[in-house]
């Protein structure tokens, strides 16, 4: 039986683990550990390998949800993770010092995967920091020649995560009927 996956990526604390948790049919397998490096200034524990969740599809198929570890020293895993992926969900934390730099970093890192598939961007923590705005993100992305969906997302809210993935799928094929 075929295995399909969606990859969640983004910087430390952007909500990847929480987003997967929101839509997974199984309790997600987390690989968090106490933060001991710069990460500890943002949160107590962080993902050191990857997060994993699963959505059961009709007919017994499964959609696997993988979250990349946010720390760059684990980026050797990213190529392995994206193989066979159907699209990328990039989550960005709006309270970080330079979310645009984060965005450029992840879009550059995954550029080949995005070119082969597509990307949807979710901006988290907008309740704590309203700037940059969603429009600001679009302006940056237009400058990079990209027009992906960019939504304000609360990773804890299932409908927010669901809409972001729906947009990812419609970007792949607007003719889809759900």
């Amino acid at each position: 039986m075929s295995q399909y996956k969606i990859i969640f990526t983004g910087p430390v604390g952007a909500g990847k683990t929480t987003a997967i948790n929101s839509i997974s049919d199984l309790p997600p397998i987390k690989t968090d550990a106490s933060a001991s490096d710069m990460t500890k200034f943002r949160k107590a524990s962080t993902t050191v390998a990857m997060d994993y969740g699963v959505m059961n599809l009709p007919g017994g198929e499964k959609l696997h949800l993988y979250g990349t570890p946010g720390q760059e020293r684990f980026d050797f895993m990213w190529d392995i993770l994206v193989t066979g992926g159907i699209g990328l969900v990039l989550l960005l934390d709006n309270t970080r010092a330079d979310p645009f730099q984060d965005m450029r970093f992840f879009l550059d890192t995954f550029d080949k995967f995005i070119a082969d598939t597509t990307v949807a961007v979710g901006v988290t923590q907008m309740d704590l920091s309203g700037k940059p705005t969603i429009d600001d993100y679009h302006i940056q992305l237009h400058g990079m020649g990209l027009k992906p969906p960019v939504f304000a997302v609360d990773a804890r809210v299932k409908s927010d995560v669901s809409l972001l993935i729906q947009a990812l799928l419609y970007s792949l094929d607007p003719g889809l009927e759900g």
Partner: protein
Amino acid sequence: MDKNKSPLKVALHGMDGRSYKMMTMYLQGPCKGAAMVVNENNAECDIFDVDVVKGQKSLAEYLEKKSQRPIIVLSLNDHKLENVLTVRKPVKTDDMLSVLSKAKELTYANIKEAVSQVAPSLNRNDNAVQASVTGKAENIAEPVQEEQKLKKFVLNTDEQKKTSKHQAAMQLNEKGFGAFIGSVPGIDVNDHKQFDKAHYNPKEYFQGYVDSAFKVSRAKGQIRQLNSGWNPLIIFPQSDEVWLDVDESQLRAFSGLAINNTLGSKMSITPLSQEASAMERTLERFYSMDAFLWKVACWASKGRYPVNIDINQPVYLRNWPNFTRLLVTPHAMRIAALLIQGPRTLANVAEVLNIKPQYVFVFISAACSLGLAGQVKREADVLVQSPEIKSNKNQGLLSRILSVLRGKKA
């Protein structure tokens, strides 16, 4: 906790920024409806973290003032201070709710006591007032409690943002669309022979006035009020929010009404005085400006397209709407995904996606209201045909994922 009950207004002391946010989120999450964080001046109760020096100092200063407000202390240790409620850290939700409930009782007891002290003096001084007061503190205290039930608090901007954040998108399906959006008698907007009549002028609806008021308010950077002979719409351009004290059904009806000359003459945009701006307002009636205008445009449209769009010319979509915070009309995401690839005529969009034109019309009305869509002006864009959409090789799988996601709406 019943969120309809009036929450206790609390001020937080002695906490650094992160702890303050954490406690605010905690009171909005596990303790939702029991308490809400407000500025110190508006608070009914004060919460101190006394495990930090700043908190201990604040508490000591506060106790010296002999305030009547209940005090809650958060600490790793036991504290036996008179008239102080203590919650041991790590804070457990049951403990916190119990203490908040006690603090609330104390608050009401204080109000009643204050009123009972005032009432006799009123009786002595003014017989006319006596008639309405009737010497019973209960009668006066009740309206105070009643007012609290209305939950008319909080000018704390962080709190407002939190609430607007929870206005998650509502996804309409085809079944509920007609009843929610309404229709125009005498026109079948889905009949291509009637397309030339299936338009509306946003300026003749509430939408046009709201749009103008938003532009003025943003340009001036001032809080403004749109007066309409109906409930006033208050616009807060700095926080990108509006406040309107009406039910959604009333707003829907008003938005779908063509504004005639009589009603139009009552429309005006006025600056709001400092005092009126600072007034406390019902939290549930705050909307983000974009979400409000988008929705009002959907209701004005009733499945028609804006009059400034030429049905025979392509339209473009500048970027994806922020769908998690907007009303998602049927097929809106498919339409956005198609138009973002290149300009198309509205009829072509309906044809390619095999959907009723009304869904395309209502989407384009809403997108135009936010300046996200418009008519193609460049000749080149008209000359070059948009690419045909190719079915994804995994179409079956993607459709199955979609059906699961759409069934999973929270």
